[in-house]
């Protein structure tokens, strides 16, 4: 089957940076981080205090009471982002299109808030029964399922769970499905809501969460900051987008994946290198074409130096010219949803020709001596961009995007 070009015709995003793509992008341009003190749960027993919460979120502004009973916060964010993306794409639904649209979402843990509420009922309150809707709320496929119901999608739908790379795997899969003709349109992205007491305690035990903020690539970085949110891209063929006069925000041209086969938490260099090379190969472009990399850039000591080494190995001399920033410094690490938010930001960067910054950058680290766009966004020509995700368990997924220039 002939490979079809795949473009982004709609985007949606909700995170600590804002409840819409416009708000999110403005905060990226202004280098205004959404990270701050966590307020949605009692943090007195947790050693770190900061996170990336969605500010002033009221589920009743988006859902009926009955829907809130049925839908966990993580799925709510997926649905909200999907609604924005579908509206932006101005899709004229037909029964045929609904049948030829797929929904592929990413999340690492699904309905964690509901899981903890159930455990609280059983183990702390000694109750003998949990909420009847616990299973449909907890199941990681809930966001994808609700999105199909929201829009009447009868094409295939599923959820990918690969820790921090979940959404890149989801979007990459969706890209291949549209390109290869398995479907004509995709609603794809991911969501995550890690800010729950038990889950925060689990991260505390690993000692990878910073006590201050997320400082990717800084010598004094202390670790990651957890965030919540969701984001969606609408993907369709170029022909379809042009035919219906849709606005095109960017194009996806490549996807690569690999496994480290190494350690369950420690990152590797070879695996990320391989995923980046595969993505470039899939995009049929050489490394020197890439102008910007949205790094995995968690702010942990291990990831940032290893990712730098991997980038240098893949890009050679071009590593001095390519700008590499981590927007986790702005929205936090949204785990299975993070690369969806980063995809929206990367596509927006190409659309607006602005390089997103790495916020909170203080002291240069000789082991991370890339152009990290420190503390201030930068206008500049950008034709091609890459977005990296390197997950716990050594699962790597990389996307390559191209600026839409009309042809």
């Amino acid at each position, binding site marked *: 089957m002939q490979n079809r070009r795949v473009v982004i015709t709609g985007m949606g995003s909700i995170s600590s940076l804002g409840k819409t793509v416009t708000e999110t992008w403005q905060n990226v341009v202004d280098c205004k981080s959404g990270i701050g003190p966590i307020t949605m749960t009692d943090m007195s027993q947790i050693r770190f205090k900061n996170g990336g919460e969605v500010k002033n979120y009221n589920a009743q502004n988006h859902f009926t009471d009955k829907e809130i009973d049925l839908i966990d916060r993580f799925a709510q964010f997926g649905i909200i982002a999907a609604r924005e993306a579908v509206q932006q794409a101005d899709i004229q639904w037909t029964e045929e299109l609904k049948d030829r649209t797929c929904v592929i979402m990413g999340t690492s843990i699904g309905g964690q808030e509901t899981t903890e509420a159930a455990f609280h009922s059983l183990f702390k309150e000694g109750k003998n029964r949990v909420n009847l809707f616990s299973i449909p709320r907890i199941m990681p496929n809930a966001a994808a399922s609700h999105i199909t119901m929201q829009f009447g999608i009868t094409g295939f739908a599923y959820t990918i769970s690969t820790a921090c790379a979940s959404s890149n795997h989801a979007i990459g899969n969706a890209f291949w499905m549209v390109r290869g003709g398995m479907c004509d349109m995709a609603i794809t992205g991911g969501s995550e809501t890690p800010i729950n007491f038990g889950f925060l305690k689990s991260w505390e035990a690993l000692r990878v969460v910073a006590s201050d903020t997320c400082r990717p690539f800084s010598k004094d970085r202390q670790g990651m900051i957890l965030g919540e949110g969701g984001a969606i891209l609408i993907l369709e063929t170029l022909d379809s987008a042009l035919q219906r006069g849709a606005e095109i925000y960017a194009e996806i041209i490549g996807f690569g994946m690999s496994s480290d086969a190494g350690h369950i938490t*420690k990152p590797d260099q070879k695996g990320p290198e391989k995923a980046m090379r595969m993505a470039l190969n899939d995009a049929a472009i050489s490394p020197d074409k890439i102008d910007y990399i949205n790094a995995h850039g968690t702010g942990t000591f291990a990831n940032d130096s290893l990712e730098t080494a991997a980038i240098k190995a893949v890009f050679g001399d071009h590593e001095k010219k390519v700008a590499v920033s981590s927007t986790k410094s702005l929205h936090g690490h949204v785990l299975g949803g993070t690369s969806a938010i980063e995809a929206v930001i990367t596509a927006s960067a190409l659309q607006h020709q602005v390089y997103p910054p790495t916020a909170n950058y203080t002291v240069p680290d000789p082991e991370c001596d890339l152009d990290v766009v420190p503390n201030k966004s930068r206008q500049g020509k950008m034709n091609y961009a890459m977005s990296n995700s390197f997950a716990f368990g050594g699962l790597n997924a990389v996307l390559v995007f191209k600026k839409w220039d009309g042809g």
Partner: protein
Amino acid sequence: MEEELLRKVVELIAANNHIPPETITIDSSFEDLSMDSLDGLTLINDLENEYNITLPNEEAVKIKTVRQAVESLNKIITQPS
């Protein structure tokens, strides 16, 4: 005090990593004992629970030997509150 701490460190390492306690000495490194970074942090977390203390992350990640574990523990336990 240090002897007691060493005994506890050895007990925890042996139990968590399924190795005979007599193979663990004050001079053992975690690497010698085939313990990776997660095994090291498991030990620190267990010691925190056992002695009701808190070891900051930046100190915890530096502990790579039995001696360092005992000395860090002793330092926190014996410091005036």
